[in-house]
């Protein structure tokens, strides 16, 4: 069953499309990251899924509910982390979490237990008596995740995680999300422009640009779909010339390959030619490199179809 789904989802603000015909599905227990640059439509996507807005056209559903129409029911089953959503300045972190547990109808004893667990797990227990203005951005981000997980949601929607976070906070958030995915069986939709961060948490990805979902899938399928090739990298003894077709980059002789199945043959060739081979690795492109390849491909296609003079391919 798809826990999160969007069909031809479109949102238009003042004549400008923030999302255009987005289709995506996240199966229950899955973790998907929608990545993109600023203005790609990530926040709009999370807001629509969280019921903070209604689509201009198309549909979306979370756990079988329509977010824009059944938001209160939905919020009982989802936890949403938005960058713009803040904690109350007049209350300490502990009081804030107690308040949000209360308005989410979490019984008092369960709330205390859950808040203690989350604060310890996120390593911010010692900060519990501080007010939000006394907390760093990283601690506030962790607190935001704690708030979203208070009522043990089945779906977690996160926007722009990674921004402004220190290394420890990023690690803590990643660790807690991993726990929630493994042990609590949550479904995660993470929208972020920090692609390496998203890649470290999720297994499938959507590439958003200017409101359009360029592609979706695993890193491997996106790499293949985007025509981004792997690289074979060989480290040879100093001063030795690399095999034919290889170029020296950062101390490794590198060559683009179509699949890792080519590696044994390349290694055999290198060894057979009498070269001292110390190391052989397959360099896989990062999500960010794949995303940039899709953007470049899109631009090339646009230029091909529209050109500078606006003429088509016949021209």
């Amino acid at each position, binding site marked *: 069953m798809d826990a999160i789904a969007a069909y031809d989802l479109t949102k238009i603000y003042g004549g400008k499309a923030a999302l255009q015909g987005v289709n995506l599905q996240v199966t229950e227990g899955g973790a998907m990251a929608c990545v993109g640059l600023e203005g790609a439509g990530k926040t709009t996507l999370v807001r629509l899924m969280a019921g*903070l807005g209604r689509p201009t056209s198309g549909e979306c559903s979370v756990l079988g509910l329509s977010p824009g129409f059944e938001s209160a029911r939905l919020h009982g089953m989802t936890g949403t982390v938005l960058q713009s*959503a*803040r904690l109350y300045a007049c209350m300490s972190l502990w009081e804030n979490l107690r308040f949000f547990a209360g308005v989410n109808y979490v019984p008092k004893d369960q709330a205390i237990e859950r808040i203690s667990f989350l604060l310890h797990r996120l390593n911010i227990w010692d900060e519990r008596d501080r007010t939000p203005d006394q907390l760093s951005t990283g601690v506030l981000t962790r607190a935001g995740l704690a708030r979203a997980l208070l009522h043990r949601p089945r779906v977690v929607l996160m926007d722009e995680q990674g921004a402004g976070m220190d290394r420890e906070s990023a690690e803590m958030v990643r660790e807690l999300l991993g726990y929630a995915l493994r042990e609590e069986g949550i479904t995660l939709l993470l929208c972020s422009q920090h692609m390496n961060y998203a890649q470290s948490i999720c297994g499938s990805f959507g590439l958003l640009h200017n409101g359009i979902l360029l592609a979706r899938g695993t890193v491997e399928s996106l790499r293949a779909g985007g025509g981004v090739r792997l690289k074979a990298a060989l480290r040879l003894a100093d001063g030795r010339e690399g095999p034919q077709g290889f170029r020296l980059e950062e101390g490794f002789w590198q060559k683009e390959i179509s699949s890792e199945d080519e590696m044994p043959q390349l290694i055999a060739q290198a060894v057979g030619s009498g070269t001292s081979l110390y190391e052989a690795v397959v360099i896989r492109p990062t999500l960010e490199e794949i995303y940039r390849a899709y953007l470049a491909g899109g631009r090339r296609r646009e230029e091909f179809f529209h050109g500078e003079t606006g003429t088509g391919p016949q021209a």
Partner: protein
Amino acid sequence: MGRQEPGRRPSHAQKRPGQKQGRQPPQKRGLSRLFSSAEMLLVKKDMAGIWARSSQRALLMLLPVTLVVVIPAVYFVAISLLPAEPGAQLPEAIVALLSGTAEKLDYRQGWLIAFTDLLCPLLFLCVPILTAAASASYAFVTEREGGTLETLLLTTMDVKNVFNAKVTNCTILSVVISGAAFVAFAITAIIAEVFAGVRPFFSWDWLVILVMLTPVLSLFSVVFVAMIITRVHSTGESLQTMGYLILPVAAAYLAQFTGIFRLNFWILGLAALVLGAAAVVLFNMASRGFTAEKLLADEEREAG
């Protein structure tokens, strides 16, 4: 999958058999019939939040004290210092407004009665308006400004329940402050009356003001501020709306002192009924406009 008509529930988003419901509001029982536990928490949080802000606290305390204690006290002292020459009389227009009650009184007593009967009710009516508008500015606009309204809209509370809880909280707060302000005014006025040797100020007019007009004006002012929440961008801007709300009271004050009419029992009662009806209409309009999409329109546009 066909395109969805905006504003219509999508066809596929149907409840599945055995679908887990998530955390839902418990059944309301006993005293909590009026409010759910979440609404009560929100009311308490808003009360504490308003009280925690020194500027808000000062506004809610100083305004009533100035209007119903300081101004009347200054006026009473000034009246007691008036040179009471033999045969000095109140202006005819004022005597006419007091409908015969001033005839048996001396000059100072006449002015005191004129003040407590004609001006003090209007000063007092500013209290529910100003305190309601000030507390509603905090509860609605400051919360939106601070980004916490968005967090609140992500909870299990229905957006209408958030609206109801906030309106109720601000109205109750305004009525309570107005009640305390009336007690403070009564003490000030009674001391002055005892010294001046005149009858107590309390009348049927005051009863209507206290029982009918104060709650209705509080509700009207709160709902008015709640209605403009999507149009203002700061707490300061929303506080300026107090000017619009005070305008009718100032007009009534002018009309009364120029002799057009006197605010009596019947006029006050009628005003309370009309304002009550208007408050209900405004409440429904504001409640309909209180949606996540409208409240967070600016943030959404930025996100888009």
